[in-house]
């Protein structure tokens, strides 16, 4: 009875007593969720267009951020370094298409999944070899990202918003909007959607798959760079960021592998659920439940909707 009370009543009473704390937790969750959503977005882009479950997306985030910071540390001005990093991501996209995707075309999914593992290891090694493995500070002020916090007085307490988080929210929204326009209105975007629908049909109307793959991996690379900058500005740039890639996986299954809105909504649900769960229910289980709560939330969702919230309905034929 006592336990039931602690699970089902106590946390809500706490929420009622300190609404400002609840708001603060919600906001933290929202920001965390947004970053998960961005990583998931990279996954979805690649999965839709090439059917590859890109495990390396998380490492691409770290690699992009590391390249940016590393170049700056070698004396390149901040914005030039940003440009160069985008260039590096383009080279990476071309290299992946040439050396990994093209030779492995038409292989089973699991083989391609495995190949992205190889890519993960390669990028970890390369990044550490060139820029060193020690944690680095993101060049936030050089890129004119705002610092400090805004306090909002509410419910007799206050909620503090980090300016960098607000900036992150704005940048993420702009990026998602741009991607949406890119997908809906441009020629390449239409080609991308065609490829996502059916590889063979797209090929037969003259769309170059190879070109599309480069575009998609490059786009995912840019999304990775943006994610890396924002995540790096909140903590440090190091390979510990790798772990957030694993956090993006439940977001994916929650939203569905093929849905961009799903990635975003899923990211927000996981981010908020995780923070609220950790804050209000965590002490009950001896804390640290953040590490698996997201997966459990996703698992429960999966039992009801096996293709995720927004995923395409899986139709099976014999």
């Amino acid at each position, binding site marked *: 009875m006592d336990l039931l009370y602690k699970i089902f009543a106590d946390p809500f009473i706490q929420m009622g007593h300190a609404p400002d704390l609840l708001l603060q937790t919600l906001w933290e969750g929202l920001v965390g969720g947004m970053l998960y959503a961005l990583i998931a977005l990279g996954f979805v882009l690649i999965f839709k267009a090439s059917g590859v479950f890109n495990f390396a997306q998380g490492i691409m985030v770290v690699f992009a951020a590391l390249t940016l910071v590393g170049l700056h540390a070698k004396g390149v001005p901040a914005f030039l370094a940003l440009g160069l990093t985008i260039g590096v991501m383009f080279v990476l996209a071309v290299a992946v298409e040439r050396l990994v995707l093209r030779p492995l075309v038409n*292989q089973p999914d699991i083989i391609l999944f*495995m190949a992205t593992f190889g890519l993960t290891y390669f990028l970890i*090694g*390369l990044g550490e070899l060139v820029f060193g*493995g020690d944690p680095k500070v993101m060049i936030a002020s050089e890129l004119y990202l705002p610092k400090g916090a805004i306090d909002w007085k509410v419910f007799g307490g206050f909620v503090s918003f980090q300016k960098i988080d607000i900036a992150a929210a704005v940048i993420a929204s702009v990026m998602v909007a741009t991607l949406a326009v890119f997908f809906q209105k441009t020629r390449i975007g239409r080609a991308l959607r065609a490829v996502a629908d059916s590889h063979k049909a797209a090929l037969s109307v003259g769309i170059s798959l190879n070109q599309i793959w480069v575009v998609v991996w490059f786009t995912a690379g840019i999304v990775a760079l943006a994610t890396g900058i924002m995540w790096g500005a909140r903590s440090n740039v190091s390979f510990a960021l790798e772990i957030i890639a694993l956090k993006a996986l439940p977001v994916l299954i929650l939203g569905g592998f093929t849905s961009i809105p799903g990635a975003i909504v899923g990211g927000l649900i996981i981010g908020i659920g995780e923070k609220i769960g950790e804050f209000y229910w965590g002490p009950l289980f001896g804390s640290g439940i953040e*590490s698996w709560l997201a997966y459990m939330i996703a698992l429960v969702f999966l039992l009801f909707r096996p293709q995720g919230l927004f995923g395409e309905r899986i139709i099976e034929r*014999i």
Partner: protein
Amino acid sequence: MFYREAGQYKTTYSADQAVFPILQDRIGIFVILLLAFVVVPMTVSGFVLSSVLIPIMVFALAAIGLNLLTGYTGLLSLGTGGFMGVGAYACYKLTTFFPDVNIIVLILASGLFSAAIGALFGLPSLRIKGFYLAVATLAAQFFLSWCFVRVPWLYNYNVSSAIEVPTRTAFGVHVTGPNATPVTRYLVVLSIVVLLTWIASNLVRGRIGRMWMAVRDMDIAAELIGIKLYQTKLIAFAISSYFCGVAGAMMIFLWFGSAEADSFSITQSFLVLFMVIIGGLGSLLGSFFGAIFILGLPIMLRTLPELFGLTIRAATVEHLQFMITGALIIVFLVIEPHGLARLWQIGKQKLRVWPFPY
């Protein structure tokens, strides 16, 4: 010329259905077992035994476990590390409760707990499949690793929150703990692995194995010919976890000597998955090849520069090792997506028709 089954007539069904129907294979496996059981313990140093051969055996067993699930039943799992951990912690608790029982029995029994947990986390597998299932099994991995840290009962309320392997004997010989010689530990590991591999090879040839493969190839069709999907998948999860659990128990009791929750992190899951895919999906022999390849690669990369008289800083070597491992995985998949087991098959076929090309 030497490897040819021409002229070997089978006169009984049991001869036809033997694990190794070809005489040369029987001789080959006999020689390998003789080498492994007699020659290796007498010639190889204790250091090599405990740092190369025991790990290969332990991981080969875990890879066989995952292969039964992923290679034979087509269910992708990333929870191997967690299931191995369940085996290890179960074995630790069993040695606490039954200090006088033969440790080999306990190691084999600890797999049962792992099997139960595995079947529990296999429950979502009827509804979801493919990569969705892989992510769902990650839930098992993270939840179990969390349990290994947060449930003090599992490590007997140790202050260090690690498990220390107690000294236990089997047939009057020290098998675990600091007094056990590498040779004893090696022989125990080898015996268990050979026994379980033999069981696995018979499982996959039998009714259960055929049910698994039918489900892997097309689950709806399998259901239509009367295979109970749920049952088949859960059996696959349970048996696979049993193998992983025994491997985990052996890893701690016969190799590491002590363990923390970190010993069963997600890294282990990925490592075993590498072995299965590099070795060859749906091949027991491939699991051994994969374990040898993945564990041997770092050793080779470490010794290779020294052979050429190069001296590279340790950190650089580590980074290069990551890069080379990654690149090799990709190169390997491009050359032979079906794994080392396929290369072995091709080699055998070539040997069969030698000296003719086909």
